[in-house]
């Protein structure tokens, strides 16, 4: 009788379907995955540790670079955590713009997810369509912040600057056209028999298991658990807007797809509502101990100049204490836990990364599945390795 043995296959770290440098060690019995072990750490950058040696203001550009597809929600979670620590109020205009940016970012991130997921399952057209739409979002980011991806637009106490002239018009054009684009993606995929065969019933995750793995965001909702931080503990102006939270029924790859498609539509509606109520006024708090004074003011007032110098050279020192604040990022709960010892630098910054927890569920999801399904499932949980390793 022939002796059969399992085979070890390394998927990654240089594999296009692992969305970065994830290495999956697959133990295969023929085409069936017996055991899967994710190996992470290839992108370890020491951001968390580094932030202990930076002033709070200097930490902001670090947060962008963890999850480079949802820079806005990273900035938001960090700056709002510090604002909570300081008890700082942010002007309503800044809050409204933050909502608009966070939702644009959610759409952009879901578009990249859709594009790569479709490409991996053999559909190249949605990939090109989705990226051309995301380009418009990046253009909007660039117009207001000067940079397409690492925006660092949110600042402690407000925003980097007000929106430039013409920005709202450009945004209006985007949200007018975008629902039709989502219809197009759906024409290509939602009822496509090949797409259905590859995703329906593949990688089923029950709500209980999703909770057991601490999943959040679209993955948790696809498994039937109605949990969205924007609804459960509203921040910014989310409690004033009308939006629906899609919840899946089965928890398979197809549901994870549907949930994200609906979220893109709901985000568009949210932006539309936010633009309508966008108040006028300043975009930064006027607390001179924390927020840089306006440039023209420091040329006139000695007091402002002194504040400016002090802020730029040593930053500000929040009271000693600890704070946790999380926002609903595109991949799930994006949280920052900050411990302050009263100095001008955080004593400890701990990130609650949705991607890390998503990767954690992968071995459970792919064990016992076929190799082609591994691609579909790994893609469907959506993670960014920059954030997993930090």
């Amino acid at each position, binding site marked *: 009788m022939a002796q059969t043995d399992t085979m070890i296959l390394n998927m990654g770290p240089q594999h296009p379907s692992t969305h970065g440098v994830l290495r999956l060690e697959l133990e295969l019995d023929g085409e069936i995955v017996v055991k899967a072990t994710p190996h992470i750490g290839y992108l370890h950058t020491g951001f968390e540790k580094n932030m202990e040696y*930076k002033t709070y*203001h*200097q*930490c*902001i*550009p*670090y947060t962008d*670079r963890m999850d480079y597809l949802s820079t806005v929600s990273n900035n938001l979670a960090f700056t709002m955590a510090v604002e909570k620590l300081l008890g700082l109020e942010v002007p309503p205009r800044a809050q409204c713009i933050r909502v608009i940016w966070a939702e644009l970012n959610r759409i952009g991130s879901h578009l990249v997810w859709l594009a790569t997921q479709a490409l991996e399952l053999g559909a190249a*057209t949605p990939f090109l*369509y989705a990226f051309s739409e995301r*380009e418009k979002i990046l253009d909007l980011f*660039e*117009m*207001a*912040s*000067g*940079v397409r991806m*690492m925006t*660092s637009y949110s600042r402690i106490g407000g*925003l*980097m*600057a*007000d929106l*430039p002239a013409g920005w709202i018009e450009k945004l209006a054009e985007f949200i007018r056209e975008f629902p039709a684009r989502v219809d*197009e993606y*759906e*024409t*290509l995929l*939602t*009822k*496509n*028999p090949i797409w*259905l065969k590859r995703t*329906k019933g593949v990688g089923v995750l029950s709500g209980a298991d999703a909770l057991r793995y601490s999943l959040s965001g679209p993955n948790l909702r696809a498994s*039937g658990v*109605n949990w969205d931080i924007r609804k459960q503990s509203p921040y910014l102006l989310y409690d004033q807007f009308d939006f*629906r*939270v*899609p*919840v*899946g*029924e089965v928890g398979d790859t197809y549901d994870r797809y*549907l*949930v994200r*498609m*609906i979220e893109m*539509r709901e985000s568009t509606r949210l932006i539309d509502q936010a633009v309508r109520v966008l108040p006028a006024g*300043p*975009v*930064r708090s006027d607390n001179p101990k924390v927020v*840089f004074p*306006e*440039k*023209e003011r*420091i*040329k006139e007032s000695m007091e402002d100049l002194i504040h*400016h*110098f002090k802020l*730029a*050279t040593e930053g500000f020192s929040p009271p000693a204490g600890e704070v946790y604040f999380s926002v609903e990022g595109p991949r799930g709960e994006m949280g920052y836990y900050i411990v302050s010892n009263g100095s001008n630098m955080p004593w400890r910054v701990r990130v609650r990364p949705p991607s890390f927890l998503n990767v954690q569920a992968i071995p459970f999801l792919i064990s016992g599945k076929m190799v082609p399904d591994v691609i579909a499932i790994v893609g469907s949980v959506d993670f960014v390795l920059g954030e997993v390793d930090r």
Partner: protein
Amino acid sequence: MADLLKCPLAERERVVGKGRAQVIIELTKGFWLTLRRLFSAPITIQYPEEKRPSVPRARGLHRLERHENGLERCIGCGLCAAVCPAQCIYLEAAENTEEARYSPGERYCRIYEINEFRCIFCGYCEEVCPVDAIILGPQMEFSKGNPKDFIYNKERLLVPLKSKGELPASKDAGSRSSSGLVASPMS
């Protein structure tokens, strides 16, 4: 589940009807869409022949500004170096003398270096500069073969003097402050 049912998508058929006809119909819809898009205007930009227009707030390669009369704006206060998260600015200030005057005030910057290799283009230096001396410009393409070439010294950063040619159009330096006011030159 109940939530999803409220959404328009869920009202549609979630499962494709069985049978070959349905499969062909759905695939044809997709191909028809692709075919239609084939005749729409292309959105691809033929880089590098064609380039995207830069935005006024672009955060690209730095430059050091001058006053209208050609004197350097930088006063060597060191705020930019202090606020830089990447710690990539090195500067040494010195006193102006009557024989050698570089900037209008008492002090000027003798050495000013930015390691663009380390720089993360956060724009903080521009944001804190009290005299709008350091500006991030629209130049995004400056890759080089040698890492040492990324250390930009004062000569490479300073905009050329007017007499040697036209002074590059100055970016609206104040456009990033929320009031949108243009910074006035110090005199």
